[in-house]
């Protein structure tokens, strides 16, 4: 009987292989797909040649965009990806990835080519020095980090938004987490922060709670606004959430630093233009995608609009396409120099 079993087991892979070979011989929908794709490409080129008869659009190639885990980033990256695919015929891969170190390493190794929004004021320097990464300008968005309270608190205690007076209100922010100190909710691990320095510098009677994720901060402020509870936490713009829930920014004396390592803790966060980063390989490739990435530039409102649509239930693709269709002039300005355009 053993022999039977063995025979049967041995037959399995054979069958599988035979099946695959047999099946592999037949036509496949893939053949049809390739044909259609080639035809479409041919038609597209023809059109481009006849209608524009202008500069030829250079071949774009295969590139990968890092996808970081906040919705504003998703909005920017998706719009760039859609334009690159539709207008330039690029093959774009979008890879979900933790920001900073892991992504810079991936760029150095050639598996990621572009970051469309980086907040880290120069944390990529080590990789730039080695020639792997280059800054390719700002993306037009201006980031502003700060500490926020729900609007109802600002209404009830008008000078709570004066950061230097926070000690007067520490009692309001007491939680079981922080005992007799006020809770100072900090941002996700990768985000730039000088919270601990501010607390030290002003001797604030607050204790840092590391929320660990943006989702945690958003839940915190949502509950605080809905239930009129107290909350003092890290947040930033551009972020569409600020349009949904009323928060008031707590202000500190005017900013005097750009590198968080040099901040004294006495002054506020700076307004920082957000950077685009690309691999040297992409920049020097001559691909029209490099031009698109270099030209890409939009406002905080633009980003918020797309982010709002994504949070409202659209897929990132739908939201990006909707914005592109409504902002053709802007998109065409990004395409300047590539020979391509959308209409």
């Amino acid at each position, binding site marked *: 009987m053993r022999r039977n079993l063995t025979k049967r087991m041995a037959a399995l892979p054979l069958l599988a292989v035979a099946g695959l070979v047999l099946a592999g011989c037949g036509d496949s929908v893939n053949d049809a797909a390739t044909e259609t794709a080639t035809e479409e490409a041919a038609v597209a080129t023809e059109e481009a040649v006849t209608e524009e008869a202008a500069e030829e659009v250079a071949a774009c190639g295969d590139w990968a965009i890092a996808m970081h885990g906040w919705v504003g980033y*998703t909005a920017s990256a998706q719009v760039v990806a859609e334009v690159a695919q539709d207008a330039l015929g690029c093959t774009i891969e979008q890879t979900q990835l933790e920001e900073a170190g892991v992504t810079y390493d991936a760029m150095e190794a050639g598996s990621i080519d572009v970051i469309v929004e980086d907040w880290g004021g120069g944390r990529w320097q080590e990789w730039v020095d080695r020639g792997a990464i280059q800054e390719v300008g700002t993306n037009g968005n201006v980031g502003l980090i700060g500490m926020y309270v729900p609007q109802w608190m600002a209404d009830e205690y008008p000078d709570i938004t004066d950061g230097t007076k926070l000690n007067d209100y520490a009692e309001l922010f007491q939680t079981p987490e922080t005992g007799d100190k006020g809770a100072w909710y900090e941002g996700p691990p990768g985000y730039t922060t000088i919270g601990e320095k501010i607390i030290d510098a002003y001797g604030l009677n607050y204790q840092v709670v590391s929320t660990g994720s943006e989702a945690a901060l958003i839940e915190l402020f949502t509950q605080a606004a809905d239930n009129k509870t107290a909350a003092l936490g890290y947040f930033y713009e551009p972020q569409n959430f600020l349009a949904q829930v009323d928060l008031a920014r707590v202000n500190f004396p005017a900013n005097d630093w750009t590198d968080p390592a040099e901040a004294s803790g006495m002054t506020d966060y700076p307004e920082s233009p957000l950077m685009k980063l690309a691999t040297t390989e992409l920049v020097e490739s001559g691909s029209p995608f490099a031009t698109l990435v270099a030209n890409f530039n939009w406002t905080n409102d633009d980003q918020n609009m797309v982010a709002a649509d994504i949070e409202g239930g659209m897929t990132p693709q739908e939201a990006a396409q909707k914005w592109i269709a409504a902002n053709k002039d802007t998109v065409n300005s990004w395409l300047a120099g590539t020979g391509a355009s959308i209409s």
Partner: protein
Amino acid sequence: MKAYIDTHVPEFLRRKWVLIVGLLVVWFVLGRIFKGVHTLDIGNSEDTPTTEVLGQFAANIRAARAENPIFVYIFNPFRQGIESFVEVIRAVISDPAPGALIPVIGWVGILAFIGFIVFATSNWRTSLLSMVLIFGCGVLGMWTYSMDTLALTIGAVVLSLVIALPIGIWAGLNDRVMKTVRPVLDLAQILPTLVYLAPLALVFLIGIAASTIATMIYSIPIGIRITAHAIRSLQNGPIEAAESMGSTRWQKLTKVQLPMAKRTIILGVNQTTLAALSFVVIAALIGAPGLGEPVLQALSIRNIGDGVTAGLAVVFIAVMLDRSTTAAVVHSNQIPLTGKPLLVRRLSLGAAAIATIVAIMISRQQLWAAVFPESLDFRDPIGNWFDAITEWFTTTFYFLTTSFNEVFTLNILNPIEYLLADAPWYLTIIMISVIAAIIGGRTVAILSAILLLLIVWIGLWNDTMITLTQVLIATTIVMLIGVVLGVAAGRNAKFERILKPFLDAGQTLPAFVYLVPVLALFGPTRFAAIVCGVFYAAPVVVRVVADGVRGVPKEMVEAAIASGSSTTQVVTKVQLPASKKSLLLGANQGLIFVLAVVVIGGLVGAGGLGYLVLQGASKPELQGKGLAAGLAIVLLGIVMDRIAHASARRS
């Protein structure tokens, strides 16, 4: 010494628990007096000498990657080999070639093929269930993601088994090999997965290769352990018979030991597969394709529904893999068919094979069979439904959960944390070591003291104690739940059947899926982190305890009932004591699983080591501190594991 204790120390002081309670009181009082003294608390972004050295080390690796011969001649070819292997599987089932519409096989073909394999290795019922579950992944709108996950899982499992089976067999036959590999296995299982993701990405880059290797690190130890166990637990009779008949060692192994151990070895395959699957999702953090992508994306836009649909697809695949491998074990144990049933079985296998080939061919030629049809995709309605349920649940129970959280934090969490983290560090180390000595003996006490001092030297003492507090509490809750549900499930088969899908879900649902609901209920707090840990670790303990209770000989239970014991007495006096081994194993597994999600806790406000690991992964200037935090988690894990082991041996 012992004689001295026997004569001079009063009887009641020799009772362990009296001693321990006394110690705790002393600890508490001293802790109150010296509250906040020498706690070694440092800021999140503050480095220590050790973390700086580690950071420099990481930076050096990075800079050397391009030219270093180890990378050029070993790591890089290794990486490429693994990548191409997995890519082949992906090309067949998930990843269309450039310009193509579908992979080599379309969805109908894949479905039929899975059905056939399961049918051939078990029975038609399991085969049907498997096909329904995989079809379900498509209905959830996750077909391509699911196939990517399946491809990665299969790739990682095959490679893991290639390594785990031979080593496991060797370790099963040879005591010295077993002694050498065991510490490595212990370490690999305690090491939280997220700790080595970033360093692995540093060596093997992001993407398929790094995620496959990370998955293998996670699943190989499980495979080795169970295979070795399978060989070791064989009865001696048949082996000795083979020896007396003059078999060579090779004959003895292939003709006697392996066939006899087959059942347990397949169980090892089963566990390796589930471990690999649960990891493949996490590997999305370093760019692995598959179901982890929609899960992470849903987290970033807080779309609970999308996260749940992706998470459900993971659970479906897990149940499919679990049931089919389990059924294969049962099938391989059945008495082989003869006569008419055998003929029927062969004919139906043949028919199924032909049907599968036809299905594969159709799936390559007909569009409806190639691409999963949109009309069958119910992702949005299912997602919206989960959104609505979660919304209702969190708003309805918010006040209940926050007040519970408050009471729990003030009365249990904070006092324990004061004890561990707010007292002077040397007091805590002395107290832990003395308790370890009482319950586990001198050796383990010395080991604990050394490892804890090592943590102090690394410079992450305070964060380690914050994490330890949460781990202790979570493990205690896990054990309570595990014993209550485990006993109930072990005694009542019907209850177990109802419970089983929930256990499957709890064990395989990626933690990222329930982060947002947990946050909505408990806010960013340490308690939220504890809830996540309990959710993940409880199912394993329930399973182990239920298995133990079921394994109690029927005669013992019946004898107890016959002598007039009440149900409570049967449970407390017979079933629990008799399954003590399972309880200890459960406690050990519970601890390891809780440690494994410590890092996830960092995402919901737990602070401590988990947060530092995450911070190190995303802030290059603090990478060294992240690595050090990972190291501290491992040291903490070893301390707890050793104390638990030693006390188990003693009692």
